[in-house]
């Protein structure tokens, strides 16, 4: 079982701030339920690819091949992304 609080911290710090080079914001300022795209953090849609690459590299969890609907659902916020990582991570460990 992966600790969800740790996953959220890694997503905020290592993926959003370091990998995407978000400036003028600290991990503490990113709310779990803030939308990543559009209003909210204001990421460009192409940056979703960097988030996907980061999730795979750090957690070994693949988002590749998912449908546009699932993609939007899981990449909505830090909360939805962390939930996806934790549950997918559990499944992958079990298999």
């Amino acid at each position: 079982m992966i600790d969800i609080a740790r996953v959220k911290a890694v997503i905020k710090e290592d993926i959003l701030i370091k990998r995407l080079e978000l400036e003028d914001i600290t991990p503490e300022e990113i709310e779990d339920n803030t939308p990543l795209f559009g209003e909210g953090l204001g990421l460009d849609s192409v940056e979703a690819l960097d988030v996907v690459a980061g999730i795979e590299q750090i957690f070994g969890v693949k988002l590749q091949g998912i449908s546009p609907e699932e993609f939007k659902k899981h990449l909505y916020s830090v909360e939805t992304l962390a939930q996806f990582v934790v549950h997918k991570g559990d499944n992958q460990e079990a298999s």
Partner: protein
Amino acid sequence: MAKDLRADEKNIIFSKRPHQLLKTAPPFLFIDKVHEFDSEQKILLCSKQVGYNEPYLAGHFPGEPIVPGVLLIEMAAQASALLLIALNNTGFEEGYLVRTKDFSFYNAAIPGSCLMIKVQLQEHTGNFLTTKAIITFKGEKKKAAKGEVVLFLR
């Protein structure tokens, strides 16, 4: 590649021509013809004959015409859009180039070169389509370019 060829002949990619399927038009159409489509391997092979009168060659470079690398990337992008059309076997698909990865240019494409553009689907994640492209010279083993493109589908 020959597998399932007869079924593939019914594909819109063969019943229509690139200019009828792509959003781009001359002088910015960089695919002349689709040759092969493999629906299992998700590979599309097409060609572009480099003419002596391509407008951009006058300036790139004066007296030494070479197809610009960015246009080889554009060929890969247009071929990828055609691959998507072939895979879905539907008409028009709107895809925009949003990323290029690791493009290298090996041998100069000059007027008279017949370029073979081969693209293969790597992944389709959300609205993003990633393909691997390799551009070679017809009848030769020489490469013109290699790299990956990502299209955003609307």
